[in-house]
């Protein structure tokens, strides 16, 4: 079989692991060919890629949506051509009205930011700061839903009775990037405000913040730093005692799950239309379990 | 109404430390043809650029057709009735001859369409052939772009443009510098026609013969100042050269010495 895959973007750490999951899984099967396209974070390009797949007569399509609100048009295009379609990693907005030959394998971003923030909240309490603590929040790219959702999760948790002792000093974007996060953190440090935590939308930014704090001579034991993704770099940082919290998302699992669903749909077999892969909290306590996972 | 079409009082232009034009008092009567002569860098083109609003003057007044004027740009000057052949020609290199001839005053149809009114190509092409014939220039293909024309062909296009439209005052800055013998003669004929029609003219030229053939009066610039104002009858080539080189200065312009 011929499977077309459209990824939201290639130069992204997490999505790269997912993409390689699909590719490796396909390579292990003899008669499955995957063709993976890079939508470069452009919804329109993604829709065009789906249409190009259709024109080339693929057997099924896997989509990692750039924008989960843009999935209606994609569903319609594939449905009209009778080509099966599977969404992966990000939950499509029309998940409840998918036609029979479409499915999704995804995670719910509400969990990621929630797990991260709640763990930091608990840690701060345990450190005796329950009477009042201050946090900086680093956001991903503002046009990206994971960033918007994870930031909203932070706010939601800090709005709960248990965690409302934490106030946000400032909240800025570092565009998912380690480099921008370093500069942003240094700029924050130059204001001289006291703070107890840095809550970042992903691990890269958390690492950038750590590098900047270390360069300024801050004791990493005195600050809670959290990220999302559980990348190898993040796990190393956690092992080194710098990073306190991260959240694991099973990229390889999602990838192979999506390919399986696509192959079944292509052969006309039945599949679960919704496969839901949860996020998992990673802390120094269970760090060892994740070294070989992402 | 006075019969003076153009007057400048104390017209001055400094470029940083360069005093290119200093206190020029100049008058031109209706119907009169005046030549401006002077060394390279004497300030002749600067004088023209101040009158036509290409640049903003440092100080002084320009009175045109009885009213003080201060043109914001050459468009204003043209609308007020001054047609100019600039030393730099002002042609659009990528356009052809008719386009250049009618640049800024294209013939159009359906004028209610505003900026989207339709060009009347055919009529502009015919008018162009007629206008070029006046200058005597040879151009193999008028639909060729200006960048593919010889130096003289370009100058003829610029002159044809000025000569095609009636005006209250015509200014030509070295119009025949690049022209051949025949073309020069033709352009001089155009100038004579203007004289017959009573249209006033300022001619900048380094060509003594031409100046004495064509104009009524010669004004000499030196180092940014006017140093002589000579009726053709009262002077000759040698005399003019003496003023240009600084060997002589008229008493009323003594501070230019």
């Amino acid at each position, binding site marked *: 079989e011929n499977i077309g895959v459209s990824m939201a973007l290639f130069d992204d750490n997490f999505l790269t692991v997912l993409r390689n999951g699909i590719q490796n899984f396909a390579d292990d099967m003899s008669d499955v060919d995957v063709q*993976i*396209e*890079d939508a*470069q*974070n*452009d*919804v*329109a390009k993604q*829709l*065009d*890629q789906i*249409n*190009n797949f259709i*024109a*080339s007569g693929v057997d099924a399509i896997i989509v990692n949506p*750039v*924008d*989960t*609100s*843009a999935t*209606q*048009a994609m569903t319609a295009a594939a449905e009209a*051509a009778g080509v099966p379609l599977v969404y992966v990693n990000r939950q499509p*907005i029309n998940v*409840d*009205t998918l036609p029979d030959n479409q499915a999704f394998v995804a995670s719910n971003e509400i969990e990621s930011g929630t797990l991260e923030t709640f763990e930091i909240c608990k840690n701060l309490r345990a450190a005796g700061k329950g009477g009042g603590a201050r946090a900086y929040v680093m956001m991903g*790219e*503002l*046009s*990206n839903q994971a*960033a*918007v959702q994870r930031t909203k999760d932070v706010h939601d948790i800090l709005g709960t009775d248990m965690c409302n002792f934490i106030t946000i000093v400032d909240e800025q974007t570092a565009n998912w990037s380690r480099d921008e996060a370093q500069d942003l953190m240094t700029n924050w440090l130059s204001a001289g405000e006291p703070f107890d935590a840095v809550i970042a939308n992903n691990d890269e930014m958390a690492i950038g913040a750590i590098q900047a704090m270390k360069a300024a001579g801050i004791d990493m034991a005195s600050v809670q730093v959290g990220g999302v993704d559980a990348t190898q770099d993040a796990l190393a940082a956690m092992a080194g005692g710098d990073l306190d919290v991260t959240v694991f998302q099973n990229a390889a699992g999602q990838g192979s799950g999506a390919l399986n669903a696509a192959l079944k749909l292509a052969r006309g077999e039945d599949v679960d239309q919704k496969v839901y892969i949860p996020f998992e909290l990673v802390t120094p306590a269970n760090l060892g379990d994740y070294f070989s996972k992402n | 109404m006075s019969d003076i079409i153009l007057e400048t009082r104390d017209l001055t232009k400094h470029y940083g430390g360069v005093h290119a034009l200093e206190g020029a008092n100049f008058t031109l009567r209706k119907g009169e043809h005046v030549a401006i002569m002077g060394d390279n860098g004497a300030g002749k083109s600067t004088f023209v650029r101040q009158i036509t609003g290409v640049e903003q003057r440092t100080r002084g007044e320009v009175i045109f057709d009885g009213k003080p004027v201060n043109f914001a740009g*050459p*468009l204003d000057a*043209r609308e007020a009735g001054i047609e100019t052949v600039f030393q730099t020609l*002002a*042609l*659009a*290199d*990528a356009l052809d001859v008719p*386009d*250049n001839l009618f*640049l*800024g005053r*294209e013939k*159009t149809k359906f004028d209610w*369409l505003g*900026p*989207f*009114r*339709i*060009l009347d190509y055919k009529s502009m*092409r015919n008018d162009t052939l007629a206008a*070029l014939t006046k200058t*005597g*220039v*040879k*151009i*193999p*293909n008028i639909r060729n772009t200006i960048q593919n024309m010889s130096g003289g062909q370009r100058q003829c296009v610029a002159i044809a443009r000025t000569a095609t439209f009636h005006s209250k005052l015509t200014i030509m800055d070295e119009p025949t510098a690049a022209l051949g013998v025949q073309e020069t003669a033709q352009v001089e004929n155009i100038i004579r026609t203007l004289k017959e029609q009573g249209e006033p003219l300022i001619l900048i030229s380094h060509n003594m013969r031409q100046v004495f053939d064509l104009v009524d009066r010669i004004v000499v610039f030196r180092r940014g100042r006017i140093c002589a104002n000579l009726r053709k009858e009262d002077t000759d080539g040698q005399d003019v050269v003496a003023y240009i080189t600084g060997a002589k200065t008229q008493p009323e312009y003594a501070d230019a010495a």
Partner: protein
Amino acid sequence: MADTTHGTGGLTFDKSKRAWPNEINVFGALVLIVLIFEGLGFALMGQSFLFDSNGRFDSIFNEQRLRIIILQVAIIGIIAIGSTQVIILGGIDLSPGSIVGVTAMVAMSFAQVAEVNGYPNPKALFGPAFMDLPVIVPIVVAILCGLAAGLVNGLLIAYTRIPPFIATLGMMVAARGAAKWWSKGQPISFPTDSYAAIGAGMKPVIWFVLLAILFHFILKFTIYGKHTYAIGSNEDAARMSGISVDRHKVLVYTIAGILAAFAAVVLSSKNLTAQAGMGVMYELDAIAMTVIGGVSLSGGRGSIVGTVLGALIFGVIISGFTFLRLDAYYQEMVKGVIIVGAVVLDQWRQRRSAARM
């Protein structure tokens, strides 16, 4: 064309030796690229690129392919119609991509339905008073956005005399910020059926073709077009000849802004959603299409026909890559090479035809 030799002074001109119009060269490049894909298709995939080699369609062509080739460039093509004019004017516009982003967000906010599948619209941005509005409202809102952005570009460039690269770079950054700010990064979805109809199916192609024809005519036959070429050819000369250069520049950039806004409407309608990241880098693709189509970046030269051909070259390349199952990495590398290659080819043909006797 009249039958004269267009000469004066008794000179003749050998018309048979006139250089080819540039568009023919671009068309040649397009054909060449199609042939390459056909050849590679048979060699590598055992399939035709443009023709129906496995009887999936009624006609002899792979209709889906033909459609997607043009569909996928139609929206950027609409932007490129604006870029073409700006570049002929001697300018450059880096802002349309961001104008697309902000306009899509704003317009879509006025195009939302109140109810989706019986539930209130989960992505609703405004209250019910602003939902289920007639389709004209979001369209007018979009045009106003584009007009405003284009006008600011034009005014800055014309009256402060800063380079267009900088003015529109500023707009690019600022408008992208505005797109993210509008709904704090939230995508805006679920438009009304009438809004959804604007960009459905092959509609984007129809808009693109109609606009291309309109502006082709305007550039060739109206005073607007002539002044655009004149300013691009020699701005000083245009000014000295009495063209109101500044006003004209404002007009051209404003039209480019409106075209970008219209592209945003079609784009968000086609995708049934608007998000702040929409249109990133579209300006570069639009400029590349324009230049591949033979419009000179130094101004004064080029045509809409060329740009349309340039857009088709882009479309063919993108579809061809997917057809050949080229890895995405190589696609980008090869795309870079082709952008350069197409322009090199064009320049080379032009020079050769200039050197011909």
